[in-house]
């Protein structure tokens, strides 16, 4: 769904070329152990503020107009809403216990959160702040994705090892795709044709055909000198034109660069320790990675496929969101 959101942004930028300065953006990073959000200025690449939030903040996402940042406060069992202007927590949303990841529908009206304790996907109406539905899925639902047209939700369940394709109107499961152990992230491509699902323990990324629910390709990783079990794919981002995809490899401390047409792994970019989540700048020229163990984020130059700079943030950075 983040992809869908980026599409809107890209569309806006296209409508008014060069109207937006390329780097006038703000990067939000949740610090899992620090119970805070670090706010990084996209020009200076420095932390400009640190906001205390709820306990164990993990998944974060911006609403459609970028006014509010939604934060999974995992140990507080709810989602916090932060005003991105005043940097104050202005409300909470019900999520069920231990929310970890959330996505917002492309029209900005709904929030989908995985509720790991109860094997449910929770659907929240962002206008009323009320729960619209709870959808039973596999054991330990985790990753959430929404198709660019908003019609399909994909959830991954970590213990059942499936990607569940859910109809966003009827809330019924349309298909279940068995993937490798501990699937973490489900990411739609911008054309809505593929869903990329990372399996942390299985060490693979499954590229699933969004219509037939068939696995088109299972991507494996290999880095000389690293034990295979250190290669744990988590965060996934695919460029809108599907030229490249990036996969964070956890304790391998690297981000894999993949040709998103041939699915060939082209390179591994060394970033920080236990690289977890990824976020692209609106112009898709920069990729930011959260590095949990080294307490920093790394900026990767997307064109050159090289790490440019690491920026210290709070304790155990986890989620990243970028406001244009």
């Amino acid at each position, binding site marked *: 769904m983040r992809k869908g959101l980026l599409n809107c942004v890209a569309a806006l930028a296209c409508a008014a070329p060069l109207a937006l300065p390329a780097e006038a953006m703000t990067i939000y990073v949740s610090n899992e152990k620090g119970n805070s959000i670090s706010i990084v200025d996209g020009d200076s690449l420095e932390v400009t503020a640190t906001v205390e939030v709820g306990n164990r903040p993990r998944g974060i996402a911006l609403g459609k107009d970028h006014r509010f940042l939604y934060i999974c406060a995992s140990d507080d069992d709810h989602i916090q809403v932060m005003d991105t202007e005043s940097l104050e927590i202005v409300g909470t949303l019900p999520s069920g216990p231990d929310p970890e990841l959330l996505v917002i529908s492309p029209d900005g009206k709904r929030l989908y959160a995985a509720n790991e304790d109860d094997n449910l996907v929770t659907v929240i109406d962002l206008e009323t702040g009320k729960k619209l539905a709870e959808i039973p899925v596999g*054991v330990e639902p985790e990753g959430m994705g929404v198709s660019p047209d908003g019609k399909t939700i994909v959830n991954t369940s*970590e213990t*059942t*090892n*499936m990607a569940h394709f859910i109809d966003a109107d009827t809330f019924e499961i349309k298909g279940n795709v068995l993937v490798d152990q501990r699937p973490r992230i489900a990411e739609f491509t911008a054309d809505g044709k593929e869903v990329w699902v990372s399996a942390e323990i*299985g*060490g693979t990324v499954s590229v699933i055909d969004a219509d037939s629910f068939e696995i088109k390709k299972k991507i494996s990783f290999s880095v000389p000198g690293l034990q*295979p*079990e250190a290669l744990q794919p988590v965060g996934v981002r695919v460029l809108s034109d599907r030229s490249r995809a990036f996969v964070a490899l956890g304790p391998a401390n690297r981000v894999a660069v993949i040709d998103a047409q041939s699915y060939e792994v082209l390179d591994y970019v060394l970033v920080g320790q236990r690289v977890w989540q990824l976020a692209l700048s609106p112009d898709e020229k920069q990729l930011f990675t959260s590095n949990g163990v080294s307490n920093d984020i790394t900026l990767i130059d997307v064109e050159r496929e090289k790490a440019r700079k690491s920026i210290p943030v709070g304790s155990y950075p986890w989620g990243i969101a970028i406001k244009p």
Partner: protein
Amino acid sequence: MLKRLLATAGLILAALAGVPAAAAPALELPIVFLTRAEEPPLPLSFVDPVVEDPGVWGARLAIKDNQTTGGFLGHNYELVEVTVPAGGDVAAAFAEQVAAGSRLFIADLPRDDLLALAQHPDAAQTLIFNSRVGDDDLRRTTCFPQVFHTALSRAMRADALVQFLVWKKWTELFLLAGSTEGDRAFAEAIRRAATKFGAEIVAEDSYAYSPIARRTDSGHIQVQSQMPLATQAADDDYDVMIAIDEGEIFGEYLPFNSYAPRPVAGTHGLVPMSWHRVQEQWGSTQIQRRFTEVAGRWMEERDYAAWLGVRALGEAVTRTNSAEVATLRAYLRGPDFALGGFKGVGLTFRPWNQQMRQPVLLVNKRILVSVSPQPGFLHQRTPLDSLGFDEPETDCALQ
């Protein structure tokens, strides 16, 4: 004979039916949790809970997990709980379940009972998961093709602990062991680990005092005077005292009561464990919460090992779409099998002795101190094989 013929016929039928697997009928998968009624052991510390029913809740939770997955695939799991009475015949109970059609067993049983199952003529048609016995000979000399171990071996525990002590450069060890058979076996595993990783047992003693009741008025006065006497064998010329007391007789009394001011590790103090409530890493929050919700208590090691056994079977059935013992066994032993066990890496089975590879937690029962394998202990296959008996070190070569 007739039974075997029938079983063979069943195999062939299933193999034929398995060819057009797309429209396969639902699979029925009863998994038997087999245990024996016992008095729960009393821990010395009143903080440690007395666990009335260790093991079974792990199997119950895992069956629920399997059922959720199976619901999407047409695989019907059922947990059959069998408790053999204190003097009962475990082999008969096993044979009865096999006759009733069950093939998959979780053995939450002591050593002799596990052997009774493993050596039973019916065992050949089954898979048995040892979720309790840590005896090293069952991984080194006496291996059974139908038996998989999800419980840690003593060697894995000892290796995990000694690796950590070597990483700390606390390499001079004073080994103080009790006198039960288990204590002697664990002490031997510690000696082996010390040799393997370059630590040194600088002194050894055995604790020979008889057990005392855990409740006595003014009991601490005797403990405070007895423990320094019992721990003088190494004077203060060592780094860490390794206390081995599987029977909960004296180990808990050692920290802060030793003759020399040294940390205690082993069965008490810093303890190598497969699972403990303090573990919250790698997504464990979910399983800890789910477990506490259904069981009303913490998840213990025997629960975790039973959970691993039932989940390993579920994973093998999910991936092979089969209920056949031979198919499941081949998959479990093969390179494609990996189970997420909330320890940060996929858990697999060593094909030579069918021991589950797993990271070992080092806990002081208040907090997670570390997890082994430790950094720098490398292995050509996987660092997990630095814990326990590696292929060249065993006589077992299961095929």
